[in-house]
């Protein structure tokens, strides 16, 4: 349904052209510009993290340190993990796309506290600089920073966690901002049950961020105190307990995996109905399951510690609750698929990525029960099975969801269309590369290959070669995708306001939107999924 508005060439100033110059960006209060700044920083670190990932894979081509020493390998996989988690996958959708689209989707002119929003992006930038400073003594602890190792290593752990601490503050402020925005700034008539599902998922995510991020902040403070003053919270020699650190860490980091995945699920819930030309199936079930996941996500952190030396009773408790998260996740998948029933399905690139999300995220999700069940987690824990599982959820899930969102919203953010052919070529390589790299790791892990190993017995080599070759295909796809992003900024066709025929509000304003988003705040009378139906 292309909305009546046709873009006139004598274009009105939009948020990109209204003011110019570096300081107009650094001091901007516009949520869209802030979103774009986040996006650029974060995507840059995605590429950096990717390069470390490729180096890790390259080293594993051969069993015996052919490329780098053990120490270098340890630094590589740690930097890969830390960058991917803290500088990319946690912030990317909320801070970048959330900032840009939450106000647009709910019919607001900006977030509730624009100055706080600007402060958040600065804090984030400061955090990034501190993290970069820590590369002087690259850290080698793994992204989990387990004590006692992390308390003893000579690497710059203190600086690094300090940087992450700043980024955590930025996350908390952003989340608060979103919660207030969603509560207070909805357009007249936009009731909770008329909210786009992306908003529901951002709401659930923000709640997790506000509750869980302070805990990891405190944990990092304790770790810093331990390193700087030798206090010994986690040091058995001084009466501390190394497992305490793991409890603290996972109390944050398990909910954090929902911070990683819920926003992507929100994007998928927007894209599937648009490209099926059909109302979303089970709106309430999807919205409430986000909240259910956010809640039950706080009860399962111990499933990372089944073999760590917890009591048997705790093991049983955590295994049981872990399975309670499976059901709401499943509900979403069923609803997306049901949405497509008797739709009019368009396979444009955003939809292809959304389908890829469902396909690979389901593999990631279905391999979860192997790790949640006590008997099978014992052998599989800390092997490549886990590496495969979390890449299927984070890369096959969040990253595919992000790519879906980037392709879907690119016309809105830039005012240009992407080249479909190039986008589909990139997708094909990414899809094939992803499966070749990571599927095989399930089997590798089942066969006993531990994670974080720089060298390995030769019997695992064939499989490692397959994964490494896969990572090259994947990298080629990602390079082509970014090439398309950059090229089409100038060369892309001009985007109409609503190229996909979507019903949500961001598509009812010009592409790119003007600084204040709406000339007049719209009045909402319907939910955003009311696609017409034809009788057969």
């Amino acid at each position: 349904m292309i909305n009546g508005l046709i873009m006139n060439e004598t274009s009105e100033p939009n948020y990109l052209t209204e003011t110019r110059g570096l300081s107009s960006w650094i001091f901007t209060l516009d949520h869209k510009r802030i979103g774009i700044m986040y996006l650029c920083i974060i995507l840059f670190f995605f590429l950096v993290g990717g390069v470390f990932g490729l180096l890790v894979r390259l080293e594993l081509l051969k069993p015996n340190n052919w490329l780098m020493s053990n120490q270098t390998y340890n630094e590589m996989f740690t930097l890969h993990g830390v960058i991917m988690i803290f500088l990319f996958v946690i912030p990317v959708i909320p801070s970048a796309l959330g900032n840009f689209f939450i106000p647009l989707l709910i019919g607001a002119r900006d977030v509730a506290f624009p100055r706080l929003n600007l402060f958040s992006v600065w804090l984030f930038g400061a955090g990034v600089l501190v993290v970069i400073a820590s590369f002087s003594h690259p850290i080698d602890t793994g992204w989990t920073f387990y004590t006692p190792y992390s308390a003893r290593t000579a690497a710059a752990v203190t600086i690094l966690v300090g940087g992450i601490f700043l980024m955590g503050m930025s996350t908390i402020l952003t989340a608060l901002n979103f919660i207030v925005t969603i509560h207070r700034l909805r357009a007249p008539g936009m009731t909770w049950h008329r909210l786009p599902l992306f908003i529901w998922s951002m709401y659930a995510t923000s709640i997790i961020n506000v509750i869980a991020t302070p805990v990891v902040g405190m944990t990092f403070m304790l770790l810093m105190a331990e390193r700087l003053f030798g206090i010994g919270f986690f040091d058995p020699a001084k009466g501390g307990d190394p497992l305490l650190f793991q409890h603290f860490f996972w109390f944050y980091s398990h909910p954090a995996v929902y911070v990683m995945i819920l926003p992507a699920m929100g994007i998928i819930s927007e894209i599937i109905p648009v490209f099926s030309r059909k109302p979303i199936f089970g709106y309430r079930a999807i919205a409430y399951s986000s909240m259910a996941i956010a809640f039950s996500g706080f009860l399962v952190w111990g499933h990372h510690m089944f073999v760590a030396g917890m009591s048997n009773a705790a093991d049983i408790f955590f295994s049981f609750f872990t399975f309670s998260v499976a059901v709401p996740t499943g509900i979403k998948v069923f609803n997306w698929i049901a949405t497509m029933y008797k739709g009019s399905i368009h396979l444009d690139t955003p939809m292809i990525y959304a389908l890829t999300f469902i396909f690979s995220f389901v593999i990631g999700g279905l391999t979860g029960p192997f790790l949640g069940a006590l008997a099978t987690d014992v052998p599989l824990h800390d092997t490549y099975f886990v590496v495969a599982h979390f890449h299927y959820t984070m890369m096959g899930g969040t990253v595919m969801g992000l790519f879906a969102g980037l392709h879907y919203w690119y016309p809105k953010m830039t005012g240009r269309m992407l080249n479909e052919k190039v986008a589909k070529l990139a997708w094909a390589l990414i899809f094939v590369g992803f499966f070749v790299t990571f599927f095989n790791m399930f089997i590798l892990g089942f066969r006993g290959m531990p994670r974080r190993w720089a060298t390995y017995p030769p019997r695992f080599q064939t499989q490692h070669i397959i994964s490494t070759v896969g990572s090259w295909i994947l990298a080629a796809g990602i390079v082509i995708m970014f090439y398309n992003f950059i090229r089409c900024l100038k060369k892309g066709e001009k985007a109409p306001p609503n190229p996909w025929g979507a019903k949500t509000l961001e598509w009812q304003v010009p592409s790119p939107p003007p600084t204040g988003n709406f000339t007049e705040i719209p009045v909402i009378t319907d939910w955003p999924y009311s696609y017409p139906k034809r009788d057969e």
Partner: protein
Amino acid sequence: MSSAPTAFGAASHVASEVDNVFIFILVITAFFFVATQGTLIYFVIRYRHRKGRPDVATSSVITNRILEGIWIGVPSIAVAAIFFYGYTVWEDIRTVPKGAEEINVTARQWLYQFQYPDGRKSINEVRVPVGQAVEFNLTSADVLHGFYLPAFRIKQDAVPGRYTYVWLRASDPGSYDIFCTQYCGVGHSQMRAKLIVMPPARYRQWYRQETAKAEKVLPLADKGKAVVQRLGCLACHSTDGTVKVGPTWKNLYESRVLLENGKTVIADDNYIRTKILNPAATTVKGFPKVMPTFKGIIKDDEITAVIAYIKTLK
């Protein structure tokens, strides 16, 4: 025997039970995978928009109580079953049978030290008889380590300052891997040991001999040879010129060694002694810094014996 290829098939009764749980979950998840993705692909093909047709859906259904009831109910039952089955088999993993023989394991950067009931210690190699339940009592001398026996489908972290345990009853003789799965620093991936499972009669014979040998007095170089075997030096060093994780000892004594910092030293008694007690002090150029310290493990007279042994390797 210890050269037998490393087995991966389930090496104990518990291991095959774990495999059964794995297969059970695999069947259930495969069912859900095929059901959901089959439907997805079918819908994409069947309802794909074709040129010339009106671009409108032919249904606007947005809820269906029965369907939604099914897809909440069936997965709930499935995950409950998986939880329960996983839990029952795990009880077997955690419950040590009565009469299990106990072996103490101390993990440290980057080796496993085993101690038999007779007080004898060995490094990176432990022997057990077929059919006998053996309990490993784990602790760590430094950071966390993950004591993992892939063929037995068992794993347990070794934690400094506390004891954890894991047990097994091997069903077949052979040589099995012991890995470290909990990241522990530079030598993490070289922290590998062997579990050698012997037929009971041969095991008892070996055990008696070893107990006796531990007391017998040997010529110094022979004693040194026994020490390096016991301490697992030969996992990383060869005596015949081949390069393993570490440099070979052939022709090492009194030779010039090029160090990482660009200096050269003569490999004399003091050098070797320091290497054993404080390997981080110097590093041979081109090798990883993974040699563990043997301080507190090796006795003074044993160091002398090791040096005497290295002298003979010409």
